[in-house]
């Protein structure tokens, strides 16, 4: 199981999708979110935050480039969600570990029970983990609120369990 695709009808469903993924995430995982402006990357992350009992609301990380929020994983383990907007870092073509150092982020993610969610993070955030889940968001030109969301695993283990819970809530979907 390496790939799946879901259609969401509105931002509420995109958020729900994030919430459904949250129990399958563990410390050290890296989520790379791709898609155009307004496709639902931050909305999806808000769903993750809800599912992971985030201590503070998830808002756009663009201004500070990274926001750290305390969370709780499914097994009750306390941890950290590091929410990154990598657009600018990528534009500069820098090294992700150096950029994190400048932002004051500890790079021992697994040891710190941290989960990294990097918007626009492809081709820069990959060195952070060998358990990567790519989440691609597409807008629909015809129907304003429709989004298709694809999940592609590169060493991420939880996709199978996630598929079952998506099926239970969203019914059948393109996979």
């Amino acid at each position, binding site marked *: 199981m390496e790939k799946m695709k879901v259609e969401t009808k509105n931002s509420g469903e995109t958020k729900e999708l994030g919430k459904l993924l949250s129990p399958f995430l563990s410390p050290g995982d890296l989520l790379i979110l791709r898609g155009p402006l*307004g496709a639902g990357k931050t909305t999806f992350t808000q769903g993750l935050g809800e599912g992971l009992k985030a201590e503070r609301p998830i808002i756009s990380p*663009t201004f500070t480039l990274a926001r750290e929020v305390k969370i709780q994983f499914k097994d009750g383990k306390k941890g950290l969600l590091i929410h990154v907007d990598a657009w600018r870092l990528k*534009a500069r073509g820098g090294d992700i570990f150096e950029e994190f150092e400048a*932002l004051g982020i500890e790079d021992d993610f697994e040891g710190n029970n941290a989960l990294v969610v990097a918007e626009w993070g492809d081709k820069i955030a990959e060195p952070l983990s060998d358990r990567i889940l790519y989440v691609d968001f597409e807008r629909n*030109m015809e129907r304003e609120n429709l989004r298709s969301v694809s999940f592609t695993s590169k060493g991420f283990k939880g996709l199978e369990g996630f598929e079952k819970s998506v099926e239970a809530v969203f019914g059948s979907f393109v996979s």
Partner: protein
Amino acid sequence: MAIKVLGIESSCDETAAAVCEAEGSDRKILSNAVASSMDFHARFGGVIPEIASRAHLEAFAPVVRNALSSSSLSLSDIDAIAVSAGPGLAGCLAVGTSGAKGLALGSGKPFFALNHVIAHLAASEAEFGKIPDNCAGLVVSGGHTTLFRLEKFPSRIFVAGSTLDDAAGECFDKIGRLMGLPYPAGAAIDSLAKKGDPFAIKVPQGLRGRKDRLFDFSFSGVKTSVARTIEKMREENRPLPVEDICASLAESVAEVLSRKAIEACRHFGSKVLVVGGGFSANSQLRSKLKAKAEENGIELRIPSLPLCTDNGAMVSLLGADLLEEGVTFSPMDASIDSSMPLDLASF
């Protein structure tokens, strides 16, 4: 007796230092020095933390020296040193805060590590004097969009609402990026908007009618809607009406910000609205706030343009307020907090 406070600011791309003088409710800016590294960041479409931190390191001493010499004062004449310790970029905050601690230790002067967003409200005091009791406050910038109830500034202030997703300035920057405008896009959109039709394109107003979210904002829907419009036009090979897009965007954002700010005044029974932050330099927002405030018999206290963007004067003003109120000084081990919360304002 008049007190003098040195304020230091380094939370983003501006290294700034200023000295203000406070006596009773009067405030006077004696000097206001600033160095910006924006030119280095513009080509990356946003401030790069590592570049900004290095620039702060280089600019810190000259900027502080400039602020002191142009007010014809030396450190020994200063009553307290204030610095923005958050929110902002961690590496940048660290430079200003460490520098301020060094100055405080070396001169034996007390020190305040304070909240940058609250300092944006204090900026109004340069031109309007001390913020009176029971005001409403609005801070709008590239990173923040928050409405406050200012029961007694600065010690009793409460967050009434905030953005649930993007900040207003961020929404402008992202749409600017999509239209190929230079970063930061605020000034470009502002001037293009003056030539366009503000009702040419339908732009939603996030959370406008939501009774349960009376003082919260959402600009993510605004961004998505304008992005869709742009993409559709490109798809159909139609020329992009950039001026109309800017005008419609500015109209929608200014309308929702000013409407909610005035609503907050009404709700709190406030006769004064204090505004601050980089986005309050936006001319569409300024004229809308002015018109709505006049209509409702509310006094609008919005700083002149140089005091809207990040500056040292606002930090020194907030420092003077704290000193006058007898708030306990910050300990030397006070740490920076890149996402410093606003609800406690940490005083």
